[in-house]
């Protein structure tokens, strides 16, 4: 909860503050031993099933051949660390290129998505405005009915999207759900400020930029994260539209060379463990290094945005 967030979130926080105490209220009966133990066990298990596999993926990527052999595969306890796997993947043209593609798609796509989403959300945030209901309906219809995969594929192909990077961005650039979340936020929380700004002579562009956006940092950050993660995780559109591996994003590379077991050009790595390179490094370590590569941006950004996942936001959007 940041202090800069808008009034609606503030209200949500107050409503939940009743529960946000660290002291048990006097009327509540003391906890039972069995209850405490059970809850503790559930919490530990839920944390472990997320953390342990990630730990093993990252650790294996930093393990040398000896450590991988000793563990018989995935490494749980550190033993013989090396960064050789990363030397290998950063020397591999295909992986470097896919990393650049993924980063570029994510940055460009997120910028495009945020610009269109913020503008559209603001444009629809005043309920009496011209054609407001018609445009809103136009948006909402797409949430209930879609033409489906084949017609979309044919349209994108007809527009030249086949074998073209933009097919990873444009077809999924706008999320109506995200527009509605933002619109609800702009409409509910910033109205007095907007009115004040327009009395002071600010036009709509100016109001959006200097009044609405600064007061909506939390919702903007969360939606930008949603979009960025979507682009970073792009897999199916690449499978559908990009036939050549020299245009692939990182997820396609992992799918093909880790899950499907094709040989990774330039390293001789397969899932069956054949390896004819000269470095003392396990093929599994190289695969896990590529997987770790896709984890890094998410793990870097997540802590900064995660505190904004205030509960009321999503709920308000679905109900709105």
């Amino acid at each position, binding site marked *: 909860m940041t202090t800069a967030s808008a009034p609606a979130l503030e209200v949500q926080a107050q409503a939940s503050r009743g*529960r946000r105490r660290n002291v048990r209220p006097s009327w*509540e009966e003391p906890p039972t031993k069995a209850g405490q133990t059970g809850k503790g066990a559930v919490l530990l298990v839920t944390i472990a*099933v997320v953390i342990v596999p990630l730990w093993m993926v990252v650790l294996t990527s930093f393990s040398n051949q000896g450590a991988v052999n000793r563990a018989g595969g995935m490494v749980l306890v550190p033993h013989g660390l090396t960064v050789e796997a990363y030397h290998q993947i950063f020397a591999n043209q295909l992986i470097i290129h896919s990393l650049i593609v993924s980063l570029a798609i994510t940055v460009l796509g997120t910028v495009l998505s945020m610009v269109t989403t913020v503008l559209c959300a603001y444009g629809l945030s005043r309920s009496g405005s011209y054609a407001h209901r018609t445009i809103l309906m136009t948006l909402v219809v797409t949430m209930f009915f879609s*033409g489906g995969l084949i*017609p979309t594929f044919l349209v994108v192909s007809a527009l030249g999207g086949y074998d073209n990077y933009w097919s990873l961005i444009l077809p999924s650039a706008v999320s109506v759900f995200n527009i509605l979340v933002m619109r609800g936020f702009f409409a509910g929380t910033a109205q007095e400020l907007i009115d004040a700004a327009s009395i002071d002579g600010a036009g709509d562009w100016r109001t959006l930029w200097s009044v609405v956006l600064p007061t909506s940092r939390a919702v903007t950050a969360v939606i930008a994260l949603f979009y960025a993660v979507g682009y970073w995780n792009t897999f199916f559109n690449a499978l559908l539209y990009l036939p050549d591996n020299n245009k692939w994003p990182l997820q396609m590379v992992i*799918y093909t060379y880790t899950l499907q077991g094709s040989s990774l050009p330039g390293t001789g790595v397969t899932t069956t463990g054949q390896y004819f390179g000269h470095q003392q490094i396990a093929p599994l370590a190289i695969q896990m290094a590529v*997987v770790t590569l896709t984890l890094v941006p998410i793990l870097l950004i997540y802590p900064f945005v995660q505190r904004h996942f205030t509960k009321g936001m999503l709920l308000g959007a679905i109900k709105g």
Partner: protein
Amino acid sequence: VPVPASQDVRDDKRGERRRRFRRDRTLLIMTAPAVVLLIVFNYVPMFGTSTAFQSYSIYAGFMHSPWVGFDTFRELFADPLFWSALENTLVLSLVQLVLFFPIPIALAMLLNSIMSSKVRTVEQSIVYLPHFFSWVLAVTVFQEMLGGAGALNQFLRQHDLATWAIMTNPDTFKYLVTAQVVWKEAGWGIIVFLAALAAIDQNLYEASAVDGAGRWRRMWHITLPGIRGIVVLMLVLRLGNILTVGFEQLLIQRNAVGRDASEVLDTYAYYYGVVNANFSLGAAASLFKGVLSLVLILAANKFAHLVGEDGLYRK
């Protein structure tokens, strides 16, 4: 000559509309980019569903492919693979409805009962995380943990125990898929229920405790009624989406487990339509799914209204 009153009113209305248009011009320009993208990539394909009624050829295009009426649908309904895809879709959805749906609700209630805000924050940060991973990453993690060469089977092998083919067994595939969905989405799923729990008036708990209600009675009479609305809403959304199950998730695992266990309506449309280039059949499968989904979501909403909740939209 006096102007008739109705004419006057109409002129006023038109003038009023023009005035509002001029006032809101900027707002309209702002909505334009998103609207244009939706028209090109959502509305045009909606009209493109006409391919389902054509014998579509990529060279002739939408305009010049011959119309064949419902022939494609006859072909679709005569294909046993289509019915098996429909069956898989429904079975996977129902297994997930029973085994996945209650988990976020239970986790949210458990988390809500924890006093220490530090514990709550740590737990939330960690269980939300897998939601942000791709399906490629999630399935890779499962493969490395539970697959033939994964951590579990290595452990079994080292201790001379029988290995366990979890990732490739078609008979248990529906439970594997559900376990993957639980791993990836159950944590994130608690967010809406936590919000509903936080909105319950805390004084109700105190009052009922003073009246002698124990913790289970309080849960039954206060907590559960308090989150009923959001539970019904999530159920409506789930029922409306019953024909949509993990497209990427299943596509990725198709080679490991085989078509018979993993084919659902979406993958059927993809393999027939794109891979085998039978565009009309793929489009027909998608259209069948789209129309049925629309009916389902409207029916689910009706159900929500019948049990006295708002559902997705109000009556």
